[in-house]
């Protein structure tokens, strides 16, 4: 009895050794099966070639991030793709140069006559005359003449140039003993005019020459400097328009806050220089607004004096009675100041940013809070506000997302981005220059720490990027002015000093010459297969595209054969009502106008790789279902199935355990054909505009070629993705054909 039990036990639970033997046997069977298959398979030369190609593409897909010449999201630098005429002159090296300043003797349209650079340490100033030229592509260019050198006082910390009435030039030098600072004034010809003593060493400044008002024809320039406890304001009219009896038209005034600490730029708010102009001072206690009193001559209405008057209002930093922390720094406080008075109407708010990304606006006249908002930037979770600027229609917010720089146009009526066509852009790094208005183009130019120069719309949507040759810009980009020909505006220029220490002046109107044909370009980059319209390297894109193609091809085919095999097995095993219904469904699927229906599905599902896989799977299973059904119909009649049935196997077990393995070769066979079909299908969907815009696929590359309008003139872009699609699809098809001979022996004799 005992032995019997033991035997039964053994039969029930095979011990480890037997299990091991069984698994070895299974493995041997599989291996020999594989070996036999391979022996037949390798007779097909095309099949081996197909397998080789697929293997090659697989290797590319896996190693793309190491072997591709560039990163997946690489774009050729602007220096390669964007041709705008430029001129450059080598400057003395080892000098800490200021930003490039454009000089003009006219007020309104700022025609660029000369450009200057100033050395902070030595006071050396080099001035180049500029004239217009014609670029290689016939675009408006620039030419730089021979320089004149001036020596100005060294050590300026603040330097700017006022393009206003006649021109001024200010240099603010801390005096040598370090006690106070001096505001020095030079004219356009670098002749010393006068100087004013600033009663402290400034920490913050704001400059404003928006006083030019066509309404009053009375230009003004106001500058305000502040240290922690003092504000000093200078307000002046140009000396060139002095009139008899009014010799000095410069007024200065100052304020002291012994108890409060100033935390940001003082702001002079212009009420067209009538009474109503204000001086705003942000302190740690809140914003304090002082009115300015203008004394006018009774007959001529000329301004005789401007002085800081009483405190008009004072406001704490609160939002709904909760205190908030304002951003501090040089441009924390901004009045949305338009360049022309007409758009100023109705936008009388003073904006301040908070450290938690909110914007708060106070009424200029009453100091009441008018709105606060936390701008929503789609796709960006966290950002910090760094500076605020003004533009004719918006408050311009400059910030950072941590990794990237950020610039946005904020609707001054609501504080929102997105209303009133406002917009935001991310740029490669922190902004190092104020966004400067380019007259005529209605555009802004600014630069970043990375040395990239951006041209953005009034809504702060980036239109173009530039980079100076020789490693980009090292000084902030500055808008220099325009050059005109025969009355029509012809060119707008910006200037920087590049990493090689050369003065670099470029037009803002250029030509995007991408797609670039294969070759080496000024940045030193070599693009083996050229680039596309946005400067993406074609070879890199094709290599990274392999991943998506293999993913889509294999998984779409896998899901469709799984559905097809299951439907076929079930329909074949139950040939009655169930089988009939399934086969009718299969007929419906087979008689669908495949591609047309697929497009409708793609439109309804939305464009993503995953959806394309699903759509392909649910629309392509019918063919294989039919084949599997017929194989199942014959297999289920065979003796081993009957034997299994008699020994009590369930239907599920019969289908999947006994019949299933016999249809697997067909499933594999059709899967290879399906992969080939799915790859081409993905390409077609993508080409027709239903592809995944976030994925790099060969189809998307060709779609972009078509929509960018370069399908007829960029063969280096047209050919590689198409060749890749054809090769990979063909390779899977060849594998299928060779495998077909293994599965269907009668084919072999041919």
């Amino acid at each position, binding site marked *: 009895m005992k032995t019997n039990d033991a035997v039964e036990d053994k039969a029930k639970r095979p011990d480890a050794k037997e299990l091991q033997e069984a698994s070895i046997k299974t493995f041997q069977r599989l291996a020999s099966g594989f070996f036999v298959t391979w022996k037949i398979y390798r007779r097909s030369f095309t099949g081996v070639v197909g397998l080789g190609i697929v293997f090659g593409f697989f290797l590319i897909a896996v190693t793309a991030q190491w072997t591709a010449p560039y990163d997946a999201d690489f774009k050729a630098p602007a220096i390669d793709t964007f041709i705008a005429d430029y001129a450059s002159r080598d400057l003395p090296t080892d000098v800490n140069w200021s930003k490039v300043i454009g000089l003009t003797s006219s007020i309104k349209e700022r025609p660029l006559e000369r450009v200057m650079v100033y050395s902070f340490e030595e006071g050396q100033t080099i001035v180049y005359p500029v004239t217009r030229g014609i670029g290689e592509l016939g675009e408006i260019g620039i030419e730089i003449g021979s320089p004149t050198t001036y020596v100005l006082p060294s050590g300026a910390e603040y330097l700017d140039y006022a393009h206003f009435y006649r021109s001024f030039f200010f240099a603010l030098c801390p005096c040598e003993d370090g006690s106070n600072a001096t505001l020095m004034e030079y004219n356009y010809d670098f002749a010393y005019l006068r100087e004013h003593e600033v009663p402290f060493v400034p920490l913050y400044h704001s400059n404003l020459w928006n006083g030019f008002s066509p309404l009053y024809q009375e230009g003004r320039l106001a500058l305000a400097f502040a240290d922690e406890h003092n504000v000093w304001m200078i307000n002046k009219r140009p000396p060139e328009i002095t009139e008899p009896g009014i010799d000095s038209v410069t007024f200065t005034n100052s304020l002291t806050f012994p108890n409060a600490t100033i935390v940001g730029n003082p702001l002079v708010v212009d009420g067209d220089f009538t009474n109503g102009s204000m001086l705003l001072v942000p302190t740690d206690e809140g914003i304090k607004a002082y009115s300015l009193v203008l004394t006018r001559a009774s007959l001529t209405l000329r301004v005789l004096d401007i002085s800081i008057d009483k405190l008009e209002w004072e406001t704490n930093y609160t939002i709904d009675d909760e205190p908030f922390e304002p951003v501090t720094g040089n441009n924390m406080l901004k009045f949305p100041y338009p360049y022309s008075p007409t758009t100023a109407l109705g936008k009388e708010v003073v904006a301040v940013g908070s450290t938690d990304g909110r914007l708060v606006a106070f009424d200029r006249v009453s100091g009441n809070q008018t709105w606060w908002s936390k701008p929503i930037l789609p796709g960006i979770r966290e950002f910090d506000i760094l500076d605020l600027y003004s533009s004719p229609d918006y408050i311009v917010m400059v910030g950072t997302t941590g990794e990237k720089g950020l610039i946005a146009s904020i609707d001054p009526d609501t504080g929102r981005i997105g209303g009133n066509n406002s917009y935001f852009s991310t740029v490669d790094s922190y902004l190092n220059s104020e966004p400067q208005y380019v007259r005529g183009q209605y555009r802004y130019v600014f630069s970043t720490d990375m040395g990239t120069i951006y041209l953005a719309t009034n809504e702060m949507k980036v239109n173009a990027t530039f980079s100076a040759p020789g490693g980009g810009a090292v000084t902030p980009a500055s808008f220099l002015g325009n050059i005109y020909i025969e009355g029509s505006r012809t060119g707008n220029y910006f200037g920087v000093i590049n990493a090689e220490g050369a003065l670099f002046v470029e037009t803002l109107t250029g030509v995007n010459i991408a797609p670039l044909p294969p070759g080496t370009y000024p940045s030193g980059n070599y693009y083996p297969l050229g680039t596309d319209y946005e400067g993406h390297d074609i070879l890199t894109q094709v290599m990274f595209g392999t991943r998506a193609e293999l993913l889509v091809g294999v998984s779409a085919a896998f899901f469709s054969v799984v559905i097809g095999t299951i439907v076929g097995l079930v329909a074949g095993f139950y040939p009655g009502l169930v089988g009939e219904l399934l086969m009718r469904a299969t007929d419906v699927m087979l008689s669908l106008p495949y591609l*047309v229906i697929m497009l409708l599905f793609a439109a309804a599902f939305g464009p993503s790789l995953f959806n394309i896989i699903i759509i392909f799977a649910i629309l392509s299973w019918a063919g294989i279902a039919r084949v599997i059904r017929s194989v199942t119909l014959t297999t289920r009649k065979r003796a081993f199935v009957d034997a299994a049935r008699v020994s009590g196997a369930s239907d599920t077990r019969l289908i999947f355990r006994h019949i299933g393995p016999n249809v697997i070769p067909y499933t594999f066979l059709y899967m290879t054909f399906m992969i080939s079909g799915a790859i081409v299908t993905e390409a077609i969907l993508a080409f027709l505009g239903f592809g995944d815009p976030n994925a790099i696929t060969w189809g998307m590359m060709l779609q972009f070629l078509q929509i960018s309008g370069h399908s007829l003139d960029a063969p280096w872009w047209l050919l590689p993705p198409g060749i890749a699609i054809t090769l990979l699809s063909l390779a899977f098809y060849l594998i299928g054909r060779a495998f077909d001979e293994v599965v269907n022996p009668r084919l072999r004799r041919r």
Partner: protein
Amino acid sequence: MAGMSRYVAVRSIQTFITLLIILTLIFIMFEALPAKPQDLLATTPNMQPSQIEYMVSLFGYDRPLSERYLSYMVNMLTFDFGISFSQAEPVSEILSERIPRTMLLFGGATVLAYLVGIYLGALIAWRRGGVLDGSSVVISLVFYNMPSFWIGLIFLVVFASELEWFPLTGWYDPTDNLPYVIDILWHVCLPMIVLLLLSLAGTVLLMRTAMLDVIGENYMVTAKAIGLPESKVLFKHGARNAMLPVVTSFIIAFVFSIGGAVVLENVFSFPGMGALYIDALFQLDFPVAQATLYIITLMVLLGNFAADLIYGYLDPRVRI
């Protein structure tokens, strides 16, 4: 022929039911589209909300789903397609202008592909194993796996843009100073050649396989043995018998090539049904998109139906 008429009746009912199912499927998919036609109206800044409401009710999009489904089915089956959203013209007029063009292009290409394909396929099979056989099979396979739009673009670059043999796009250009019909044929030429090459691949392979089956038959050996000239054996005895399965696949090949019209018409800016369909989908012009889809589906179904009838007539076994 009782079996045959029963077979026809069963197949007709099956085809009709399939049509109803596909129509329903199309309706569901259009309902599932994330964008609705009224969204497009709302993007026009001058549209007042009341106007949008009026348009929505005019086109019946405010009615309950079941009612819309019913009227959709009735309209489709009675070929009453309504008015296009984007062109403010009856859809049937737009379609009646477009359908003949697509038929000309794709019908012409399929006929040519069969004529050339049968000849080539027979010849290749006859000289099996030769250079012609190997290279033509490889070339066919390459064309078979090529994305159609890509080869279309390449032909455009080479023959229209570089060599300037053919016009770049379109259907008829009065500035060419050519007679109407000639100008149209000239415009149709390039897409037709591309289409011919693409469908030729399948036909050649099919004919080659069919011919290989026939070559081994005894009557071929006999024909050769009695000393008939080779061309006579090849075409009269061989190709004629091998043609049967190839010819019967013609109708299906034709209707399926029309399904592919969406791609090639897009590449060649050919104003046919496929281009119309894509435009309508992107413009959310539901009446046009639904009608075009319906017509294409109907053509495919009728094509399949006709092919089944021919099979049924030729091969009594399938009638069961």
